[in-house]
């Protein structure tokens, strides 16, 4: 069985292996044991409420209960930009017009912005290759929305995700080559790693402070602004289905888009319901397709656990859970649980208005 639970010290080697495989794409989880250990410790302090709420880093592991191994990770950072300055470019438009001459020109412009400061970020999603498919990625991502909703006062009203921007197979980013590299005397991957390591003062020192007029960049660079890396397209689609929208912010290095949503409008949040657990005596066939399963969480702040069960387990006030599931969620009969769809409901129903 696959269960979401807080990340813990013993996950270090599993996490390191995943980070190594992920390579350069995931800058928030570089394959650096010391750094990963610090992240785990930070997450543990967060769940145990031993750090200020706004400094919280909530990291969840997807555990295969048969092997006890962590096979995926996902996270929420309670607030960005408090310790470090958080930079984006805001994609804006500059309009210059002269009535007299009949000229009207709109110039897309990048403005350096710190406007995501103090907002919660969903981040650090990573799933072991062997576990792709079967809704595992959805579980890993969406479990966070259940958590956000349960513990809203720990997070901002709006949450966002930074999507990986376009780069080629050698890790070269067209935007970096046209813009960043002119100001930072280093390779894209190096800048990305430095930024991921958490010391961002070099950005304040080296970053261009005045707006960048896009027509001055080559086509190749302009084309990738606000676009995601091919590998990230499914993740973007999933977030869009949840109600996340591009908010006009892009990554300062690779131009990847920032998508955001208000917690209360996230589909997982809107479609979730509360029930009481009832340990089923009859055997339940757990082996149903992802489209027929729902997420079920134990609603615990410190020991948040989520797994999936067939939708057919739900009744009016309760949900029937096999003993193994109850054990995985560390709950007993009568405990409150929260349920949310794993996959979207058919779209037709939603748009049947007017």
């Amino acid at each position, binding site marked *: 069985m696959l269960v979401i639970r807080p990340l813990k010290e013993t996950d270090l080697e599993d996490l390191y292996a995943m980070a190594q495989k992920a390579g350069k794409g995931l800058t928030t989880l570089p394959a650096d044991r010391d750094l990963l250990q610090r992240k785990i410790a930070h997450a543990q302090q967060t769940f145990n409420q031993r750090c200020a709420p706004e400094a919280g880093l909530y990291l969840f592991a997807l555990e295969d209960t048969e092997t006890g191994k962590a096979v995926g990770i996902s996270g929420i950072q309670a607030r960005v930009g408090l310790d470090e300055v958080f930079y984006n470019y805001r994609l804006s438009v500059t309009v*210059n*017009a002269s009535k007299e001459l009949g*000229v009207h020109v709109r110039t897309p412009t990048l403005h350096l912005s710190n406007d995501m400061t103090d907002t919660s970020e969903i981040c650090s999603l990573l799933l072991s290759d062997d576990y792709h498919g079967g809704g595992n990625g959805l579980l890993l991502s969406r479990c966070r929305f259940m958590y956000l909703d349960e513990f809203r006062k720990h997070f901002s009203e709006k949450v966002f995700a930074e999507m990986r921007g376009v780069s080629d197979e050698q890790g070269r980013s067209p935007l970096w080559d046209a813009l960043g590299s002119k100001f930072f005397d280093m390779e894209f991957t190096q800048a990305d790693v430095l930024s991921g390591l958490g010391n961002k003062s070099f950005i304040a020192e*080296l970053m261009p402070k005045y707006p960048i007029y896009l027509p001055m960049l080559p086509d190749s660079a302009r084309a990738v602004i606000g676009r995601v890396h091919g590998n990230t397209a499914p993740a973007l689609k999933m977030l869009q289905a949840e109600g996340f929208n591009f908010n006009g912010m892009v990554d300062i290095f690779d131009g990847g888009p920032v998508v955001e949503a208000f917690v209360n409008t996230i589909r997982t949040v809107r479609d979730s319901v509360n029930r009481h657990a009832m340990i089923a005596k009859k055997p339940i066939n757990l082996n149903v397709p992802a489209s027929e399963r729902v997420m079920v969480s134990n609603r615990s702040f410190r020991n948040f656990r989520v797994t999936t069960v067939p939708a057919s387990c739900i009744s009016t006030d309760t949900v029937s859970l096999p003993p193994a599931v109850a054990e995985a969620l560390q709950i007993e009969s009568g405990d409150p649980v929260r349920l949310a769809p794993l996959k979207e409901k058919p779209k037709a129903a939603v748009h049947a208005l007017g």
Partner: protein
Amino acid sequence: MWLVRPALPGDVNQILAIAGTVDSETARLSSTLPRQREALAEKIQHSQASLAGTASSDSQPPRILFVLEDTATGRIHGTAGVDARAGNGQPFYNYRRDALIHASHELGISSRVDVLYPSHGLTDHTLLCSFSITPELRNTDAFELLSRARILFIAGHRDWFTHRVAVEIQGVQLADGSVPFWDSLGRHFFNMDFDTADQHSGLLSKTFIAELMPPNPVYVTLLSESAQAALGQPHELTVPNLELLQREGFQAGCYLDIFDGGPVLEARTDALHTLVISQPKALHGAIESEVESVVEDGGDLCLIAAGEGAGFRCTLAKAAGTLEGTLKVPVKVWEVLEKTAGDQVRVAPC
């Protein structure tokens, strides 16, 4: 003889013809010399009013246009202008090039980042402008006369002008007529070709620049390579003029033309070479033939200017000093300057 005098309404056709000649060979020599009959006529009219002292208000400071005339034929071979206050009561636009150092102590990185700031720093400086000359006269004494006569005018009307003087030098334009700096920057915002923008910039209202110019500083490193290479570089055809101005004491500072990235030269008005070396002299009254021979034999070639306002005349002739401090010149110079024995002139060695 060559004569520099204020332009008159009747000169319009000939000036337009020069603009045409110059045009065909050098693309342009001055964006401040209108190519439209109406605009040119207006410019001449304003020049006349300026000389008459009837046009000098804060919103319409003096702008004077001179022509180079061959007194033998009456034909006009060139123009040169001076605006008492660059911008003419409105902002005068330039880019000011400055460097920021982007350095990271921790990473041991330090790089120089050049930035072009929109600037009005030269507004109200006195501006030399509207220089054009027929190609066959380039590198001749007439060329020098035309350019330097303005300085003698300034010397004779010092209080009309400010203490700093600037001149914009045409920037790089390629053989195909393209302007690399414009194509990399201005074109994106003004949405017109270089010549159109350049002609608009000769007009009085600079509102369109305020409206269309990118409002924020621009990083040089994001310009095209050819635009970066053109920054502060003069058009090759302007080199003689540039050198003449450098001898005059002009130096390139940090200002650039907003359209073509050409250099803007600056000088202190009171340090202009021609102004410094020029001297007021009275014309020596002498028998014609005697003076002619003395002057032709032993005189030095000089710029000689006389007259105030609309009466300003400047020519080029051999002249010699006398023990009494007067100036001996051929009598034909008297005629050209419309002066006679005992009258004051201002003379500067060529």
